[in-house]
């Protein structure tokens, strides 16, 4: 019986490979734990709150997710590349402050400030990466230093130039409206206003996934995170890849910084502290290994979505928002345990 069965199967399949059905294949993906978590959380909030599933409320959830998710794209890639960045939260504000203060102080078109902010954001990323590669210190120390310095610079320079704790309003300056249309506007879909950051977020996730899975740079990112020495030995430009990753994080920070600026027209210089953890949490919940070499951009996006759902869902369910942090901590713990199991399975050699 078994003979005829094996005979009928052509030789392309190996008898030692148990047939992997699509479900098993799906279970091997890094973001699967987060996906299950997201579905459970969605059903949960849909059950306890009537408003949660209404289009308007859902658009708000998506918006909240996108403000975390845009950064989580860069942070996820960086984490797969084996590093993490504690300066992201305040770097977002640094970028927004640069654009507003520069335009305001020199009375220039807002777009010049926006472009300068891009240069500043990419430079912060470059400097982080460059110091890291030069000194070989852990990224925890280097970016913690950058985090502190940027926090101080944000407060100090804003007071020195503008004389207050927030940047002056730039809403009546040249180019403000066109910049606002790009960075902070809404698109009406079937009577529901969806913030355009949601689309920017989705586009970034798509680009990052493509880079990660289909380009050689993506191959290098996995390699420098998985084993930097091995990667160097086979000719991967480890330094350039890691510095590039920090700059990609800088780019995401610029987009979010511009959104923060044009959503209101002024920026509080003390903001952003603590947000870096939200981005890292989103990436970790999404299945990126803290030690590098494993994860996905989609995972980071699902992590951000979980964050958005929990954040807004608690409000819609009319609970005390105090509970939010508890949920977040619990999700983080569960996600890391799932990751650990995945890593053990992947590492286990048959001797």
């Amino acid at each position, binding site marked *: 019986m078994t003979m005829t069965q094996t005979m009928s199967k052509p030789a392309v399949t*190996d008898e*030692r*490979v148990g047939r992997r059905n699509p479900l098993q294949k799906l279970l091997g993906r890094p973001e699967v734990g987060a996906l299950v978590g997201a579905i459970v959380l969605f059903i949960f909030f849909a059950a306890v709150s009537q408003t949660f599933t209404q289009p308007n409320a859902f658009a708000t959830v998506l918006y909240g997710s996108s403000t975390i998710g845009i950064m989580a794209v860069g942070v996820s890639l960086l984490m797969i590349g084996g590093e993490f960045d504690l300066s992201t939260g305040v770097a977002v504000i640094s970028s927004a402050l640069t654009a507003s203060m520069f335009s305001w102080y020199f009375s220039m078109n807002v777009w010049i400030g926006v472009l300068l902010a891009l240069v500043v954001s990419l430079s912060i990323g470059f400097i982080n990466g460059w110091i890291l590669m030069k000194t070989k210190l852990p990224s925890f120390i280097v970016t913690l230093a950058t985090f502190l310095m940027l926090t101080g610079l944000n407060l100090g320079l804003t007071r020195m130039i503008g004389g207050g704790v927030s940047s002056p309003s730039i809403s009546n300056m040249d180019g403000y409206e066109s910049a606002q249309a790009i960075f902070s506007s809404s698109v009406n879909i079937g009577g529901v206003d969806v913030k355009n950051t949601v689309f920017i977020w989705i586009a970034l996730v798509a680009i990052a996934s*493509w880079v990660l899975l*289909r*380009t*050689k740079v*993506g*191959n*290098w990112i*996995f*390699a420098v995170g*998985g*084993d930097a*020495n*091995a*990667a*160097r*030995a*086979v*000719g*991967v*430009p480890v330094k350039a890849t890691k510095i590039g990753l920090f700059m990609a994080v800088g780019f995401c920070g610029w987009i979010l910084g511009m959104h923060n600026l044009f959503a209101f027209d002024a920026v509080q210089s003390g903001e952003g502290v603590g947000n870096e953890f939200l981005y890292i949490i989103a990436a970790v919940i999404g299945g990126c*290994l803290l030690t590098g*070499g*494993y994860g996905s951009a989609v995972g980071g996006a699902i992590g951000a979505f979980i964050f958005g759902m929990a954040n807004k869902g608690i409000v819609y369910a009319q609970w005390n928002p105090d509970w939010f942090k508890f949920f977040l901590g619990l999700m983080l713990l569960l996600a890391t345990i799932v990751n650990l199991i995945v*890593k053990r399975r*992947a*590492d*286990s*050699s*048959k*001797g």
Partner: protein
Amino acid sequence: MDAKQIDQRELLRDEKDPLTHTPVHLLSLESVGKHYGNIVALTDVTMAVDNGRVTCVLGDNGAGKSTLIKIIAGLHQHDEGVLHIMGEERKFDSPRDALDAGIATVYQDLAVVPLMPIWRNFFLGSELTTGFGPFKRMDVQAMKDITKKELADMGIDLRDVEQPIGQLSGGERQCVAIARAVYFGAKVLILDEPTAALGVKQSGVVLRYILQARDRGLGVIFITHNPHHAFPVGDRFLLLKRGRSIGYYDKKDITLDELTAQMAGGAELAELAHELEQLGGHGDVVKQVQAEVAGVTDSTADTSRASG
């Protein structure tokens, strides 16, 4: 029982490449040395590597084997002496440089990323791409097919090129690394202790791949501390000790016993036996070691007489 050393200066002057019959070696080192700060890791090492020949570098831990291959592989630069590739003087700035010159290294830790699939590891650093400009992407299907085919050609029957390479056994990973070097047109293949962590059977498999690489015309440098693995596959043997060359032999001029004796160092073994005796070691064991020492010192004496 006379082991004739290869005269190192003669070697570089006269010997012709056995395949091309040109007086140029595929790779040659002349009085190469390297120090790290005030630590001298390697001094005055001379050797030649030719197409279709296996050069074994033997030595105990700390003999300078690793430093030697790191210089050839481009991880470190030598401070003294000259490194020639096809008669041209070179000094490598990075592993990429060495790879471009046709020198591929299979490291002890294999330089594979355990969490990545086999096919991604196979092409790591030398990915195949299609498309232009911003749409340039990896040719995933071609890479998977080539990986499967190349490994099959080496006689490695793989289950699934998508599985993480960390799930393969040590011998299999070794073979993937060798197949990768062969595929990417290596002229010189350096193997850093490929059999050190393997069992008897797996070692045999790897040794067979070394011969296969040799038969494809590669110049192989086989680093090991096991003369029993080196002797059957090697054509030339370079013995290192404390950063110096203590002998360089053609296979026809040396026997396995002599090679082992040279490596072990008879005097040190005698000392060990003496120490064991003083510690009140088991009578039988001490006798056994003493017998071994007797054999080893005999042959070492012969060798030193012959070479001196």
